[in-house]
């Protein structure tokens, strides 16, 4: 009896000691980290623990899928391609006829946005302008989202052809815009006598003077806000991911969850998988100095053992790998969207109707100040594309110099009105050369009546003077919509032609296609 009691007491002591033994440290889930630890570990117990974690594909199914994808050649991409045979500025830049933007901002839509605006800021005649703009990273990003090209995130080495995050980051810095004048006067057709009249009929030669494309713009971001670690950034990231803006990431996450889960169901339910785990562990433990080679061999071995029961294994692998690519792209896209450009260089080529062509070089500074406030500063020089004739008094190649400043407050989402922002802006234009209008005899200028003009006049110009403009702008956007409606009121001391103060209103609508292309 005493011996029995002693035996029970000893058992209790042993089991309590076992229960109180500390758990070994948790292992990282990704296979590069596990492999790195295995290479540097000499303790056999720990090597076994690491090897058993490595062969647990529940933790890193992408290791297996990536290794199979790397074995595929570039011809697979071509085959896929053949089988598939089908806080921003939207709107015209400053100084392009109708525009609600007194001061240019640094950000543009990634893929495409379209804006239609009506109104004039420094011009005398109101214009109806449609602007299409986007950035060059939208194209490769769309190829990744459509599963046409693999994606290589920054710290994820992949062999073979892929769109790298560095490429997308570089292309994102370059954007373009094209403005179309949809006013009736954008295209003029002029008829001139071609020969002597024949009775009451007059033969005529018609020529068209089309200026439907009024401006083209190219932008390059010089300096980006590269904050990815501060508490402010992390808070902004969390807000973005958990809001409607995080929908593309959520969709990609749901898709990855489904495809990776289904793939693991297929793999882990095959008896070849558990046999492979049983065979691979001792090989990995024994592979001192050759862990990478042995691990690569074991992944190929698993594929060979699964393929007889799953001839479509590679297609399933490609589906999973594509889902991983798209998810990682969307993760990077959320971070990129929070990296605001600070300094941007913009070149505009303008060819407004009845006016000489001009080139403008503009430097844009755009910075968030916290609490929903941001500031944008512009400085620009505009020159005539061709030197104006000497007969235009006071003219020179340099047309004007511009300076603008805007303060904007993001009002968040209002109950009835949706997303809203309000801005106050000031613009100054030093007029070095007078504004010039090209006139064609017999062809009226829209909105302008010229009286007593000699028939030989080809150009008219007004007295030059500095222009000061102040503007208040409200931008509204419906809930869960990429459409934006800017409304603005401005006051100027004069326009380019009229030396009289003027109150003006500008309205517009823009649509950012980024959300559509992300679906």
């Amino acid at each position, binding site marked *: 009896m005493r011996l029995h009691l002693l035996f029970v007491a000893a058992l209790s002591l042993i089991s309590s000691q076992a229960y109180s033994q500390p*758990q070994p440290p*948790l*292992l*990282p*889930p*990704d*296979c*590069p*980290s596990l492999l790195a630890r295995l290479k540097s570990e000499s303790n056999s117990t720990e090597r076994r623990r690491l090897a058993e974690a490595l062969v647990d594909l*529940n*933790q*890193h*199914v*992408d290791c297996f899928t990536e290794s199979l994808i790397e074995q595929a050649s570039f011809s697979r991409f071509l085959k896929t391609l053949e089988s598939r045979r089908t806080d921003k500025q939207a709107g015209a830049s400053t100084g392009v006829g109708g525009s609600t933007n007194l001061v240019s901002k640094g950000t543009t839509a990634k893929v495409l946005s379209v804006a239609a605006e009506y109104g004039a800021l420094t011009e005398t005649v109101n214009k109806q302008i449609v602007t299409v703009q986007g950035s060059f990273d939208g194209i490769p990003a769309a190829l990744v989202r459509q599963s046409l090209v693999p994606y290589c*995130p*920054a*710290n*994820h080495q992949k062999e073979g052809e892929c769109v790298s995050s560095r490429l997308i980051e570089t292309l994102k810095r370059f954007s373009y815009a094209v403005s179309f004048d949809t006013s009736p006067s954008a295209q003029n057709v002029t008829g001139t006598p071609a020969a002597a009249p024949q009775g009451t009929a007059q033969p005529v030669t018609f020529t068209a003077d089309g200026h439907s494309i009024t401006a083209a713009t190219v932008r390059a971001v010089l300096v980006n806000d590269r904050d*990815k*670690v501060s508490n402010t*950034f*992390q808070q902004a*990231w*969390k807000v973005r*991911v*958990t809001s409607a803006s*995080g929908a593309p*990431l*959520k969709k990609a*996450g*749901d898709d*990855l*969850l489904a495809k*990776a*889960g289904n793939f*693991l169901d297929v793999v882990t339910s095959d008896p070849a998988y558990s046999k492979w785990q049983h065979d691979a562990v001792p090989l990995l433990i024994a592979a001192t100095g050759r862990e990478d080679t042995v691990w690569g061999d074991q992944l190929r071995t698993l594929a060979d053992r699964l393929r007889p029961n799953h001839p479509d294994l590679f297609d399933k692998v490609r589906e999973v790998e594509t889902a*991983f690519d798209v*998810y*990682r792209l969307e*993760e*990077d896209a*959320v*971070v990129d969207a929070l990296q605001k450009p600070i300094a941007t260089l913009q070149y505009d080529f303008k060819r407004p109707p009845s006016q000489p062509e001009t080139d403008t070089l503009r430097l844009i500074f755009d910075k968030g100040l916290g609490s929903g406030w941001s500031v944008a500063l512009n400085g620009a020089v505009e020159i005539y594309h061709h030197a104006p004739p000497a007969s235009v008094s006071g003219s020179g190649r340099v047309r004007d110099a511009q300076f603008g400043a805007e303060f904007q407050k993001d009002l968040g989402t209002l109950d009835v009105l949706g997303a809203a922002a309000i801005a106050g802006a000031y613009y100054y234009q030093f007029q070095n050369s007078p504004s010039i209008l090209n006139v064609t005899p017999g062809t009226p200028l829209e909105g302008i009546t010229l009286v007593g003009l000699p028939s030989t006049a080809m150009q008219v110009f007004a007295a030059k003077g500095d222009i000061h403009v102040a503007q208040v702008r409200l931008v509204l956007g419906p809930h869960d919509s990429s459409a934006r409606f800017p409304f603005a009121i401005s006051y100027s001391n004069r326009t380019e032609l009229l030396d009289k103060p003027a109150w003006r209103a500008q309205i517009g609508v823009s649509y950012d296609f980024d959300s559509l292309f992300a679906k």
Partner: protein
Amino acid sequence: MADCKLSPGSGNCRFAAKPEDVTLKVRGTKGTVLFESAKYDGVPIQGLPSDTMVVSVTAGTKNLDVVYSFSDPDNGAGVLTEVCTGGSDLALVSAAAVFQRYPICA
């Protein structure tokens, strides 16, 4: 706070559990980490993305599949824990392995 219901499992079970509601939390150690999407036994878990989620564990061996999102997609890391009295870390989370399957035996 409730008693812990999850503990390290063995064999094919990543975690051993009692068949009750379990509240899980992910804590970022490098950047912010969230549960982006998840499902338990094939049923999507609602209320995501979030840094916490409730899993209604039922008897048997069932899979908890999770996709994590990281504010630092290149180097992000975190820890999975249970929200309970005296709870310890359950698993490490890494931006290099955004998808995780946790077989839970209850």
